[in-house]
């Protein structure tokens, strides 16, 4: 238990957090900036990072948790190896991205925000990735698939499943 606790980066496990804190003053204003970095690094905000931040910024964990759960970019659980994000921005919606989302739910048997049991896929609804010219779009680990159809989604999922079988 004790070694899991971060003491500002002194334990090797939290070297990342320790190094990260060197870039910031211990001021509450920096919370969201720190969380953005943590999200980027781990793909989610692990509990040990929350504890380390709580100690570093001298603020209650509940307050940090309140911020994490307010912003949709921050997640509390690791995403799947392949994160499929369906754009539900208006441009994509008008071009039928809901159908692609429905198909993804059906294929992966998960709801947006969830990860498949085998950890291979996670599904996400996003708002406008900015590729409105290619609407509808979805992304897999950030790579954009434009002019998307249910068929394209199926192909992508099949391909990933085959590669990871």
């Amino acid at each position, binding site marked *: 238990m004790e070694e899991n606790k971060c003491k500002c980066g002194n334990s090797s496990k939290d070297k990342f957090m320790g190094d990260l804190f060197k870039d910031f003053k211990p001021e509450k204003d920096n919370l969201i900036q720190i969380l953005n970095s943590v999200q980027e690094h781990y793909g989610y905000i692990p509990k040990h990072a*929350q504890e380390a931040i709580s100690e570093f910024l001298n603020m*209650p*964990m*509940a*307050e940090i*948790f309140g911020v994490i*759960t*307010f912003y949709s970019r921050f997640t509390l659980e690791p995403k799947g190896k392949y994160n499929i994000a369906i754009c539900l921005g208006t441009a994509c919606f008008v071009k039928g991205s809901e159908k692609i989302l429905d198909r993804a739910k059906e294929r992966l048997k998960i709801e947006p925000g969830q990860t498949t049991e085998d950890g291979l896929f996670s599904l996400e609804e996003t708002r406008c990735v900015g590729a409105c010219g290619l609407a509808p779009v979805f992304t897999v680990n950030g790579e954009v698939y434009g002019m998307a159809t249910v068929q394209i989604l199926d192909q992508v999922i099949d391909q990933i499943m085959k590669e990871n079988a």
Partner: protein
Amino acid sequence: MIKITIDGIETEVPENMTVLEAARTVGIDIPTLCFLKDINEVGDCRMCLVEVEGARGFVPSCMQKVTDGMVIRTNTKEVNDARKNVLELILSAHEKKCLSCIRNGNCELQDLAQKFGITDVEFDGAINNKQIDDKSTSIVRNTAKCVLCRRCTSTCQKVQEIGAIECVNRGFDSTISTAGNKSLAEVNCTFCGQCIQNCPTAALHEKENIDEVWEKLKDENTVVLVQTAPAVRVALGEEFGMPIGTNAQGKMITALKRLGFNKVFDTNTGADFTIMEEASEFINRVLKADKKKPLPMLTSCCPAWIRFIEMEYPEYLANLSSCKSPHEMFGAILKTYYAEKNNIDPKNIYVVSVMPCVAKKFERQRPEMKNEDLYNVDAVITTRELAKMIRQANIDFEDLTDSGFDNPMGEATGAGAIFGTTGGVMEAALRTAQDLLTGKDLEEIKFEEIRGEKGIKRATVNVNGKDIRIIVASGLGNARKVMEMVKNGTAEADFIEVMACPGGCIMGGGQPIKSSKTRRKYDVRKLRADALYTIDEKSTIRKSHQNPVLQEIYKDFFGEPNGHKAHELLHTSYAKREKYL
């Protein structure tokens, strides 16, 4: 002063006043829900909306300051409709189980629904996120009854500066929760219960222990002893419509006897023991420089404060007095000395403490609070729970005649009584300490500088030629400030009293809940505190060490204060506690 017009009434009010306050000066009571003066001024619930000429849209009167020439309308159809619709929206998302609700009859949301004459909630749909947390010994959370007013979080974050709870998620899913949506038992909550005091509904309430008490009262083989804390008697009457600050001690004792308790004792007597032990301990700390017993000494009768030190300042655990709190001491005495005297097997004794506090429920079951494998106290119920039991037993409280506490343990001093208010423990301890050090019976026993509502009070008292520097703090936010001073060496104190609830136990988390309206109209703290000081003043004995019961028990049983036996039964120790499990 500036001129304004409210609902056609021209009036002058001071600058910097809010529209809400200004309206009250002319007898207009604009409804509020989230508003709590100085604690939660956020303007979110939208119940207090008014029309201000020239302003775009409706304006929350609790936040809007008056300006010269302002024309305000609080009672137009538009604004009333908007308020009513918002209230209906709130009701539509609320778990409406009013008949079986712990706050039925004392709920600000219910009051509003009645005020607006709502007979049917027009909108229906999903209710608030439901999360029930009843894992802690003290506080139950039911988020489906929450109206998201933020009164609890403001109290926890800004007054108590703990921050155990916060609004989490977003939009309709917003809910008041803890880090990681854990139980309050698994986070940095101290169980002070101030959140309960400020909750307008039953989203936060005490964990009741009434059923097990009823169970034991029925059991003929158990001797059920009850003790009541000083603050309970000056608040219990409120539950039965008596004015705030009524001392209902006599009726309370009668009621407790009617409920079937075998003996009714006074925790004030326990407080006298605490003073004997604590004052002696303090003198020892002052006289013998011992690294293991450093100064400043910190009082230890408040269980939320103890949790606070264990979690937030574990490096100062050695500064905490080793004394158990009064009711725990008293429980220990009842199961040893009293049991022996009356020839009762302590295993058959069940000690119930009636406390103004929900943290006491946690303290009761701490492993440290055991002797010979028996808990010193077996159940803690709050002032509110006692009132509920009295109602359940069909007792007409107001019409009861007075009774006295049972002897031989019933005698207590005025010093014990003032334990219930901030500064009281210190005052009582000083009365005894100065006598013990001088060997005299000094007449100067009133310490005005540590009375009153200020959150942090300082005084220097000369005792037998030595200056004793003291600090009295109430409210955990103030406690943190004091501890930071201790930490950075600016505290300059020898003895520090802390009570977790602002104002002390009289304002504890287990006391009758006062609506924001009542709190606005009455200084609840002062009325209850005055009642305690009156008890003290009317007492024939006002110094703990002069309590004959106590003197006899020391002679017969304990020997010296801080002696071996006293240490075994009346003292304890604490350990560092993780804030987040």
